[in-house]
């Protein structure tokens, strides 16, 4: 018999880091640096325009080239880390927060509540993320806040679903039953066993989720509900660059790569943290 939730120690997580995981970790650390001290990597001003220098291809002066207003794309990509990753974080936070409420209510509440909430969660989960996000954005209007809320709300059912399953697995686990048999009070069982064993695996899932959320928000940008200009948020940059794709491919390629690389690194790391789910 195996344990419903794999043993989660940091050391075990590091031990699981294969070369890919190490690379991912390095990338994520670099992303963090770029988010916190962008000036360290790219000292320029991401908003500084230079119309005479517009649409310059990548060169030593402009590593990633310049955009239609002559802004340096490398600088913008680096300075865009904070808003882009921040958006992913915020959306994931909202998603997990809402998911926590639904998941715990359903997983720990009375059977009837679980049956009802469980169904509703499944139905919400059935609604494609973008469809649901579009609805909410259409109501709230464009902008970062709305996009974050929409993606958060649209991903919440997914988190709720995982949480509910985890809560149920942990609540039905041998160690919770044993604690009950020992006469431990319900709140104590919850605090000691259920909450930590439910929440810890969520770290991995959340890491995966941030990467996905960045992609979703940029998709909203593409559909015209994105971050406000002239923020160097990657989705918005990518969207702006797509117009020039046939003449200035670098405007599209580099922000797109930033998204792909970040999401990939977060996904690899998330998988590792999620307990090496894939044997």
């Amino acid at each position, binding site marked *: 018999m195996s344990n419903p939730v794999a043993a989660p120690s940091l050391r075990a997580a590091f031990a699981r880091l294969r070369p890919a995981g190490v690379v991912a970790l390095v990338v994520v650390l670099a992303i963090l640096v770029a988010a916190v001290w962008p000036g360290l990597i790219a000292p320029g001003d991401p908003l500084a325009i230079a119309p005479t220098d517009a649409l310059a291809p990548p060169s030593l002066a402009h590593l990633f080239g310049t955009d239609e207003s002559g802004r340096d794309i490398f600088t913008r990509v680096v300075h865009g880390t904070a808003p882009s990753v921040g958006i992913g974080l915020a959306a994931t936070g909202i998603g997990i927060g809402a998911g926590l409420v639904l998941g715990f209510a359903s997983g720990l509440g009375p059977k009837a509540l679980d049956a009802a909430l469980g169904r509703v969660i499944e139905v919400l989960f059935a609604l494609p993320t973008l469809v649901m996000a579009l609805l909410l954005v259409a109501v709230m*209007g464009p902008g970062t806040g709305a996009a974050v809320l929409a993606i958060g709300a649209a991903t919440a059912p997914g988190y709720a679903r995982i949480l509910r399953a985890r809560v149920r697995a942990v609540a039905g686990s041998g160690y919770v039953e044993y604690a009950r048999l020992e006469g431990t009070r319900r709140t104590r069982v919850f605090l000691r066993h259920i909450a930590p064993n439910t929440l810890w695996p969520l770290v991995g899932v959340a890491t995966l989720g941030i990467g996905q959320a960045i992609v979703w928000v940029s998709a909203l940008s593409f559909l015209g509900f994105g971050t406000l200009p002239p923020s160097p948020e990657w989705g918005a940059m990518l969207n702006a660059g797509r117009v020039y794709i046939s003449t200035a491919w670098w405007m599209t390629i580099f922000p797109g790569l930033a998204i792909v690389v970040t999401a*990939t690194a977060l996904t690899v790391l998330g998988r590792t943290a999620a307990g090496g789910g894939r*044997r």
Partner: protein
Amino acid sequence: MRIARWALARIGSALLVVWVVTTIVFFALRASGDPLEAILGGPGSQAGEEAVAVARETYGLDQPLLWQYLLLLGRVGTLQLGDSYARRQPVIDLIAAQLPSTLLLATLALALAWALALCGAIIARTSRGPAGRAVTASLRGAEIVATVMPQFWLGAVLILVFASTLGVLPATSSGADPAGLVLPVVTLAIPIAGFLAQIMRDSLAEADAAPFAVTARARGASDTRLLLHHTLRHASLPALALSGWAYGSLLSGAVVVETLFARPGLGRLLIDGAMQRDVPLVIGAVVVVALVYVVVLVIGDALELLVDPRLRRRTRTIVRQADVAVGA
């Protein structure tokens, strides 16, 4: 008995879908914005008092909110989706006209995703030696990158390469024109292919290590036979179980891909409706998307029964929910 219970459960979830979706959409769209404005052609219109009154009457807007809601719920429940505010056409007609195009796109994309995922899993399974490890490692990498690839970016790059530069494939798509379908289907399929390939590769490795696989080898089965007669069926089960969800995700992607490739369909209808705050159209589109999901689940159930005759409903596993978590 079992069939009846199963059918009841599916009908129940269809009704639940209708209720949940109607509720969300109705209250979300009323929360801000004035539906009356949308009916009368936007803020630029010069509608007279009379037209306003007629619109109020037609759409029940002079009734209390709760009554409007119940009215709507009743109508949606019986699939009387009413007329589009902005287009002044029956919603059901609009959707019926667009649905086949989107279903064609999504179904082809799912088929392609399956084909790619199967190929990936089989290649990963059959690659041996150092070269094989390199192949497997790059497949893994490709899967992850495919999964996180923004579709509109991928599509734009494909258009740049195949339509603008090489000129071998059209950049736009409509109906069932085969050449036009290639790029949208590929764009739509790749992320799902990455997702399915991961699941399939994992479950194939799992099936490969299972005792029944050892037994089959001990009977003299070759790798190919083992794959075709034993492990592939097992490996496809989890992927099959998740295909219903994957289909939902394809409908999500269709919103983007249809815009990108100027392809008519439900996704574009939905975007237009959301932008114009066309309540009946949005409800209709979302309800239909959700109902399509229910239908797909039914088909998925049937396929699963076909592949797995054990009739044992496995609980839809917690396994891999990490991937599913992040939504469609």
